[in-house]
Structure formats: structure tokens, C-alpha cells
């Protein structure tokens, strides 16, 4: 049994795992040309680098700047040592003396003189590659734009007519289901929890006030459920002149909203009280046209102080569930998404 590494040509498959057979270990062909040791040798620098990164991320999560700083220093220091180790063989051992670089440059200059400056074949190669690249780009870019850009166009849906405001009893919630955009069909069916807060003074005038909470959980988007008694017997089906029927189910004694997926819980104002959500429940803007409640645009809410008509709402552009809109974590999402 000859060691395979001994005869190693291009047609050989050489296994580099170390053999335990001692009978040829003592032989002369211990090291084959392919049996190169790994370069560089194992080092502890990457471990320190990883610890630094972990420390840095931990600091970001905990919101503690000293920990972040310590992690950054560790990561930079060990990263520098690691890179220095890895590139040791690539760097020159010592700076070449000023006079030595004249000799290698002389033949190089001769070689360039022998080559024609701009030959026909080079022109054809460049032209083929260039024209091919231009054609490829002309075909690919519009297709990529077609695939990606429509997802970022804003589709301003028309306000949804939820019927006369007299359908909404003062001080209690109604579950409303409706099609946000009837042209899209059932896939646009949405649920909102609507509470009539009664009349409130706005600039000296008495105006009706509503709290309209979107059912999408602020954790990962499951449908939150109203914690109260659904009065199914009092369900109303409204058929507006235009658009799709709206279903209204009154709720008695609503004390919270809860999400079935991961246990997120909210108070009647939509503030998180338990579970993983990162902000309060989203809300819809509204307007009142000819005595009908019109559902406007969706917006995200950081936190609500107070209740009902007096509530102070910290309002933000509509964001994905799970995305922080306030606090230090909002810095993780610095670029606003078009079309939201």
C-alpha cells in the first residue's frame, strides 16, 4: 500500500486527512506537495473579535453606551491583530532599498514596447464585451425595476365609508370589518375597533371624536382580538351606495386587546401592556362627511397618554409591525420606506 500522496498529479484525488497508519509514517514521503499546512496558523484573534462584536451588539440591545464602547474597542483591536496575522505573508518583510526597484522595471518597459498599443483583437474583444454589457443592462434594468419598484409606489386608497356615526354608541367599542379597496377583493379585508368618544371641543366648536384602532398586532402582524362580549345579535350590515358592505358588531365591556399568535396584550387605548409588541396598536385617521364616518389613512402610534377624546397620541408614519417608531431603537430604521 503506497501512500497516495506520494504520486500526485493532476488526475489524482488526494485526501489530506492525516493517516493513522504508522507503517509508512516512518517513510520518506511524509509530506506531499498538496499537503500544505493551513495558512495562517490557527489563532485566537477571531475569537476575541467575535467577543467584541457580541459585546457591542449586547450594548446596543441593552442601550448601554459603555458596553458598546468596550465592545467596539475589543472588536477593533482584535480585528486589527487578526488582519495583521492573516496578511503577514503578503506584506514585504522589509522595505526595498531605493536603488533595487530599477532592475525589475527595465524588462517590463521592454515588454510593453513589444506589444502593439491597440490591436484589432483587443478592439474586438472590448467592443464585444462592451456592447454585450450595454445590451444586458438595457434588458436587465427595466426588468429589475419592474420587479422591485411597484412595491414602493404609494397606493392612496379612497376613504372607506363606515356609515352614519349614529351606529356607534358613545363610550363603547364596535368591531368593523370592511374592504379597504373593493377592487382588490377579499385580500384587502380589514378589521378596526371603533369607539365613539362623544362630542369634544375643537377650536370652540363641538365635534364628534373617535378612536379607531387597527386590528394588526404591533408585534408581527397577527389579528388582535377584542377582550369583551361580542354582541352578535346586534350585528349591523351596512350597504353604502358605493363600495362593499360594512359589518359592525358592538362589544360590551371591552377591557383589552389580545393577540392569539405570541400573546401580545394591549389596553383599550392600544398601549402595550404585556407580551412582545414594540409599540402601541396602529390607528386610522378619520373624517366625518355628511354625518358618515370616513376611514382615512393608517398611522403608527408610539404611545398614548390619557384616554378617549383627551388622549395625547405620539403619531408616526405607518410602519411595519415589529418596527420601533420611537426610542433609541428607531435609529435601526433610519431610511423611510416610500409608499407606506
Amino acid at each position: 500500500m503506497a501512500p497516495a500522496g506520494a504520486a500526485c498529479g493532476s488526475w489524482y484525488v488526494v485526501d489530506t486527512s492525516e493517516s493513522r497508519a504508522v507503517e509508512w509514517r516512518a517513510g520518506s514521503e511524509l509530506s506531499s506537495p498538496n499537503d500544505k499546512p493551513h495558512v495562517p496558523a490557527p489563532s485566537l484573534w477571531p475569537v476575541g473579535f467575535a467577543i467584541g462584536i457580541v459585546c457591542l451588539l449586547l450594548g446596543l440591545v441593552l442601550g448601554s453606551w459603555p458596553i458598546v464602547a468596550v465592545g467596539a474597542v475589543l472588536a477593533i483591536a482584535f480585528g486589527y491583530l487578526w488582519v495583521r496575522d492573516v496578511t503577514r505573508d503578503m506584506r514585504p518583510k522589509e522595505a526595498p532599498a531605493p536603488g533595487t526597484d530599477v532592475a525589475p522595471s527595465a524588462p517590463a518597459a521592454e515588454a510593453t514596447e513589444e506589444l502593439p498599443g491597440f490591436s484589432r483583437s483587443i478592439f474586438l474583444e472590448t467592443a464585444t464585451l462592451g456592447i454585450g454589457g450595454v445590451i444586458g443592462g438595457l434588458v436587465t434594468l427595466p426588468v429589475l425595476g419592474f420587479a422591485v419598484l411597484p412595491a414602493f409606489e404609494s397606493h392612496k386608497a379612497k376613504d372607506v365609508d363606515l356609515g352614519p356615526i349614529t351606529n356607534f354608541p358613545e363610550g363603547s367599542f364596535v368591531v368593523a370589518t370592511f374592504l379597504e379597496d373593493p377592487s382588490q377583493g377579499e385580500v384587502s379585508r380589514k378589521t378596526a375597533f371603533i369607539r365613539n368618544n362623544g362630542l369634544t371641543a375643537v377650536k370652540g366648536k363641538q365635534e364628534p371624536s373617535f378612536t379607531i384602532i387597527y386590528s394588526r398586532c404591533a408585534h408581527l402582524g397577527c389579528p388582535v382580538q377584542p377582550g369583551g362580549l361580542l354582541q352578535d345579535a346586534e350585528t349591523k350590515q351596512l350597504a353604502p351606495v358605493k363600495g362593499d358592505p360594512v359589518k359592525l358588531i358592538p362589544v360590551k365591556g371591552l377591557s383589552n386587546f389580545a393577540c392569539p399568535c405570541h400573546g401580545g396584550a394591549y389596553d383599550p387605548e392600544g398601549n402595550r401592556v404585556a407580551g412582545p409588541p414594540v409599540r402601541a396598536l396602529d390607528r386610522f385617521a378619520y373624517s366625518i362627511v355628511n354625518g358618515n364616518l370616513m376611514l382615512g389613512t393608517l398611522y403608527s402610534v408610539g404611545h398614548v397618554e390619557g384616554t378617549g377624546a383627551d388622549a395625547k397620541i405620539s403619531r408616526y408614519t405607518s410602519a411595519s409591525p415589529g418596527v420601533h417608531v420611537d426610542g433609541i431603537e428607531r435609529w435601526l430604521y433610519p431610511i423611510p420606506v416610500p409608499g407606506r
Partner: protein
Amino acid sequence: MAPKSARRRQLEAAALYPLDWVEERTGLVGGIKYFLFRHVPRDTNWMQTLGAATLTAFLVQTVTGVFLAMYYKPDPQNAYSSIQHITHEVTLGWLVRGMHKWGASVFIILMFFHMARVFLFGAYKYPRELNWIVGSLLLVLGMLEGFTGYLLPWDQTAYWATAVGINLNATAPFLGPFLANFLQGGAQIGPDTIARFYSLHMLLIPGGLIGLIVLHMYLVVRLGVTSPPWSPTAAGRERPDESKPEGARQGLIRSGDGQDEGH
């Protein structure tokens, strides 16, 4: 063993003639033989069949998926009812859909087993590092297949699981919300989402998977199969001369006298 009879030699020549004809014109016989009849270490292990098993699972997904696409309708109004149609009305539809559904899990599980084997055998080490990286990309693409395929039945589980999955992506810093918009085809799951997932599931991602599988297997053939870590011998033997047609088909038919080209 006794030498071949004249009749047997005649038969072999008749069987090999078309192979030689194809080989002379395409070189494919030699190529296939080069791919299939490779020398492997003497003590290869059953664990080393896991990669081929994963490939088989992928091929099952490809074939069943192609036929499911003949009956499936990727739009919000018809997706659910077309799945019901496939399961309950199309002949053997329950079987093909079942194979695709359960085969998906088999594919993912086998990928992990194969990965564990490669890791425990140390087969990711020099010179096979790039094949480990290609394999990792295959794992990612395989998981993406699972994610995009899960929405297609368009039932409550599919819809809400995908909603959670997309919103999970949206929480990634910086570009997460953009990724969610791209996946949904808009700010929310809408009429375009399911067709988009269908296209990703059956065209874009499988295209990438097939390309990477070819690369993965090219590297396996080029670099050879690793010996198990307990192996006392190193692998590697000379290949036969494949420049001649006879050399190319050498070993295609097992010869009785221990010599491939005795005549």
C-alpha cells in the same frame, strides 16, 4: 475465470456499438462515465450517501412541483379552491401534492443531515472550503423555497404564517422594511403577493438552486470524496485513459475475466 465465449463477445460488441457511435460524436459517454464511475476511498461510509439522498429529494420536489403547476392557480380568488381541486378531484392529486408537501420537509431535513456529516467528517476542510460555502447557499435557498411555498395553499395557516414571516423580515435593521415591501409587492399583503411568491418559488429560487447544485457536484467530482476520519489510507488512484473511445467506456459493462478490454 473462463475467457468470454465468442457469442458473448459478439453480444457485447452489438451493445456497445451505439455507445461508441454517440461517444465519437459527443464525448458524452466518457463524460457520464467520468462523472459516475469515480474512484472513491475504500472505506466510504453509508453516511456519505446523504448528499445523493438530498439531491433525490430535490428532484422529487422538482418533478412533483412541475406537475402541480399544471393545476394550481396563483391568485387570491382561486388559489385555495385550486388546491382543494388538486387534493380532492384531480386523479392522484392527493398523492402528488402530498409528495410535494412532505418531500419539502424531507429535503430540508436531509440537507441538515448531509451538513452534519460533512462537518463531523471534516470534509469542509482544505481543499473543499468553497464547496461548504456553496452548500450553505443551497441551504439558504432551500429555506427560501420553504418560506415562499408555505403561502401557496392560501389557507389561514399559510396567510398568517407568511404575514408573521414577512413582518419578521421587516424588523431587520436598515433594509428590513424594504425587504418586506418587496416580498409583499406593496405596503401590505395584497393581490400581487401570492403571484410574486409563486414566481419566486417555482422560477427564481429553483433556478439558483439548480445552478448551485451543478457547481456543488462539479466540485465534488473535481475534488473527490473524503475518506472518513478513521480511515487508515489516503484516497486517490489514477484514472483510465479517457482520450480513446474504448477508454471512455471502459468499465461500462462488467467483464467476466477481470479485464475490461481483453480482445
